[in-house]
């Protein structure tokens, strides 16, 4: 993970600030940085979104492809994750530098999102046991400025919201062979229900308190952090501790409570925003990558 060098004096300054609920950039402990979201960025994906959180910049594209359902769950589709840590994001990713992080991120994302409680996997099934949609979620890190998990999760939720899967129906020919037929109308497509898709809130233990959306400097002062995925109802679906230090049970409990509160508050404006953008339709002025 991208790190910065922080001197002892700086550390003390940050720690004291957090203790007084005033962070270096003026935020409170439970405040996010400025966040920008744009969907439908990449035309050759089925759904895409770009999220900018502070200087962290991630792009998520969703491609729907036809595949065979997993044998254990023949009536469900599934999601696949791939995180590409491009060297654009930080020089450390050069060569194979980003692979490990990429693996870690995609494994976590798989755990968080690929389950029937987050995404309605049954709706991805075309014909049980034979065909289903496989959603390939590709995450591209464009810039790292801390709090990757949160940014990625928001971007995934937005991209899934934006995803349009072409409608197909199965027709049977005279020999009993099944053929997949594609709708003629490009607007005739299926949308995913993203209501239950969780968002990840990362909480960093800084001193005795914990902060959300830590910058790189704050991260450098933290011993351990907790990632919590929370649905819009405030249900915690996944908790993971990352980082080298240890957390005492009491603070874990406190952090989970904070995570629930923050996560719940995150969903409502996000959905409102996405719906608003959607309602603009074609009239929307696209910002793109250069804007």
């Amino acid at each position, binding site marked *: 993970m991208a790190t910065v060098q922080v001197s002892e004096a700086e550390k003390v300054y940050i720690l004291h600030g957090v203790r007084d609920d005033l962070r270096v950039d003026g935020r409170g402990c439970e405040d996010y940085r400025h966040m920008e979201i744009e969907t439908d960025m990449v035309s050759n*994906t*089925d759904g895409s979104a770009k999220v900018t959180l502070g200087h962290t910049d991630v792009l998520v594209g969703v491609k729907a*492809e036809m595949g065979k359902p997993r044998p254990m769950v023949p009536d469900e589709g599934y999601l696949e994750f791939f995180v590409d840590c491009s060297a654009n994001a930080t020089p450390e990713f050069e060569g194979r530098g980003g692979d490990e992080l990429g693996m870690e991120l995609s494994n976590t994302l798989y755990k968080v999102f690929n389950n029937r409680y987050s995404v309605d996997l049954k709706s991805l099934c075309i014909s049980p046991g034979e065909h289903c949609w496989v959603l390939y979620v590709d995450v591209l890190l464009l810039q790292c400025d801390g709090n990757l998990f949160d940014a990625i999760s928001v971007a995934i939720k937005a991209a899934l919201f934006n995803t349009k899967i*072409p409608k197909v129906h199965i027709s049977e020919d005279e020999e009993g062979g099944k053929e*997949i037929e*594609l709708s*003629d*109308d*490009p*607007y005739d497509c299926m949308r995913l229900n993203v209501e239950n898709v969780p968002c990840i809130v990362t909480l960093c233990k800084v001193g005795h308190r914990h902060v959300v959306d830590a910058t790189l400097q704050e991260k450098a002062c933290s011993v351990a952090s907790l990632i919590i995925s929370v649905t819009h109802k405030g249900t915690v679906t996944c908790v993971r501790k990352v980082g080298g230090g240890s957390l005492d049970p009491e603070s874990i409990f406190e952090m989970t409570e904070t995570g629930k509160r923050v996560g719940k508050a995150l969903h409502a404006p996000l959905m409102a925003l996405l719906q608003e953008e959607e309602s603009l339709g074609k009239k929307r002025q696209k910002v793109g990558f250069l804007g």
Partner: protein
Amino acid sequence: MLKSKTFVKKTRSGGIMKIVREHYLRDDIWCGSEVCTECKQEETVLQKDACIESNLCSFPHYLLPDTNIVLSQIDILEDPLIKNVIILQTVLQEVRHRSAPIYKRLKDILHDKEKHFYTFTNEHHRETYIEREQGESANDRNDRAIRISTKWYSDHLNNTPTDKRLKVVLLTNDRGNKEKAEESGLLTYRCKKQDTSVTSVPQDETAVLTSNEITSSKVLFPEHLPLSRIQSGIKSGTFQQGTFRASRDNYLEATVFVHGEGDDSTEVLIQGLQNLNRAVHQDLVAVEILPLNQWVAPSSVVLQDEGPKEDDVTEEEEAELKSGPSGAASRKPTGRVVGIIKRNWRPFCGMLFLSQIKEATRHLFTPADRRIPRIRIETRQAATLAGQRIMVAIDGWPKHSRYPNGHFVRSLGSAGDKETETEVLLLEHDVPHQDFSQAVLSFLPKMPWNITEEDMAVREDLRNLTVCSVDPPGCTDIDDALHCRDLPNGNQEVGVHIADVSHFIRPGNAMDLEAANRGTTVYLTGRRIDMVPELLSSNLCSLRSSVERLAFSCIWEINDKAEIVKTRFTKSVINSKASLTYAEAQMRIDDANMNDDTTKSLRGLNRLAKILKKRRIEKGALTLSSPEVRFHIDSETHDPIDLQTKELKETNSMVEEFMLLANISVAQKIYDEFSECALLRKHPAPPPSNYDILNKAAKSKDMVIHTDSAKALADSLDAAQVDGFPYFNTLLRILATRCMMQAVYFCSGMDSDFHHYGLASPIYTHFTSPIRRYSDIIVHRLLAVAIGADSTYPDLMDKHKQSALCNNLNYRHKMAQYAQRASVAYHTQLFFKSRGILNEEGFILFVRKNAIIVLIPKFGLEGTVFFENKDKPSPKLIFNEEVPSLTVEGHSFNMFDKVKVTISLDASNVQHQKIRMSLVEPVISGVSVAPSEPEPEVKRAKLDR
């Protein structure tokens, strides 16, 4: 300005892909009108005084047709009267998508400067480009695009000075579209109105053309019934099951052979595209017999699918079909195909028929076999594949498609190439000709191979005998050798030694299965396709001279009158003293100075053979004749240089005689031992009607041929001689050959009639050529079991398996024969190609309704001289079926008449090159041609290089 076009497509592998294309809009697309002052165009197409004499629009106007108008009224648009038409890109694309021939015609009109047709690329124009809206179908979107463009045009032309103002008239037959257009203030007419108002267009033409809407998704064929219903239908007798055989001459006609109980199989005639219902040659289909009043007679017209008509159902041709002879007597059971029980698709060889649209990826493929329909394939490499022989496999035949869909399998090479043509020939005749697989080769004996002690222990040692072989020159797979010696008791011992192939090929292994599948070695001109790997066929099994070889020997004790006293069979080891050719053997016999053992043995054999032959002929064996040719092949180019008919020497018949004797002896032995599962060969007597043509032919020379028995036939053939016409007898024998049935293998347990008609033998089999025939291998195994030299195995004793094997062998033999004939025909063509045009004498072999078939003895070549020609008025022809004779402009042709013809190669159709013959003598004005000059010497010199 950049837009992106997005659409979803199904890939060939069944996946679904989203495709995004960048679409650039521009504002420098001009309107193409002469009157326009705004557009900065250099050239204009549309005239300023655009006026069609029309009582509907008296003002000057441009026409703007929509897609359906173009598709249905292309003939009107082609009329020279119609000028100044705007064709939108949208329309052009739709037309291209829906009908290639009409697209081609439209493109031609667009290129015609006189017509003043202008293509407006509205899809790239900033002001006329529209995106498809939600809930809008592709068609609606295109209609809207057409309306928007019309609107743009009328607004655009309104900006011109008032005195020159022109209007744009949208032509559409779609009521909805018309209403919408009129709402937005556009001048719209239906095409019918517009046309009738165009005063100078003949009325009747418009009437014809207003109908006939073309829809690509139209269902052309009735649905096939599901298998369950077919089965119940067959059980209840409403449907019949049979093999579908398409007609070679008429693509709208086919017959279905319905196999009834026992021998009574009926033929059901199928006529018309709908009734044929997507069945392909050799499919197993279910047919429903039509009611009696719908029965028809087979048509005698030759119809070939011309291809590019695409989906226009060939109604006229079907009408023509029905107008054939419809006398009640000639009517046949007629039916229609209701379902396919089993497809018999294989990859087909043929050539690509390029689409008229240059950049199109869908093309029609024309198979070499005329009975197979054209196949539509998708390829991007059409340009490279044109002119090549390719293989295509059929994938399916949807009910709304005129042609089956297929895919490109592989290229065989460029057409006309000798290698390629041979490959095509082998593939088309289903001759397995791949190299032997590793699994097969693994069963070959390890080299160096030697005869072991164990072999010697169970075999008779005949190495001291003076055995020799007599074969055609250049033969490497020698499977028979002979010996003859005097016995002390005054009798003679004659031995026929056959290569012991069954020693090397053990039952059930990969090599055995491969050989059983191949069935026979195929000899083509200049190439041999082996049944067993070369190591065996040309080395270990081949009974070459001065090497020790394993053999299966049949040894007789024969007395002076050539009567068999004793017969025995044994596995043996021999050492052939000489491998001779027929000519060499003949020379030895004739040369009185030669008195070595080999020669003496040959003389003895020859003497006995003559007696045997005489006796056989007395019993009624037929001596038939067929013109066979051999090519002299250039050793480097492998082109035929010269051809000659095969001639037969005494030694040929000497070897033949002993082979027959061995075959008959073995047949008797294996039948005695295994009455249920002996593999035998029979030749059924032909039905009397087969001899009709022979009788008529003889009658023309005042002779009578008795056909009641083989003996009578043989005698009357011998008696039939015409003074001064020595070739007559040969011709008669050639005809007699054509009357014969096919000889077939069968399993003795499955049949009761064993008689061999041609050889006049009550029982017969094949024993003497195990290297090149699988039947002989089986016979060897049976015989080996019979004499206790080998053990049996289950399949050998199973008459049903044996019978199935016979069927395959018969099929392979037939196909091998066809392939050989085709190979000879191809080389004959090559020969005549290099020779240019020749004048030769020939004899009329058959007389047909509109042609005579001529045989050229010199080349053993048969050809047809047609008296009807497409581009010439046909001469007066009177055909008398009784004689038969054909009278052409007063000159009558009878069978066996001597004629002179020119021979040339007709290469107009690359796939079906043929020898063309035309009459030189007798001279009939308007029919015969002048004799051509003999081929120039220069050409010859070139060839002899």
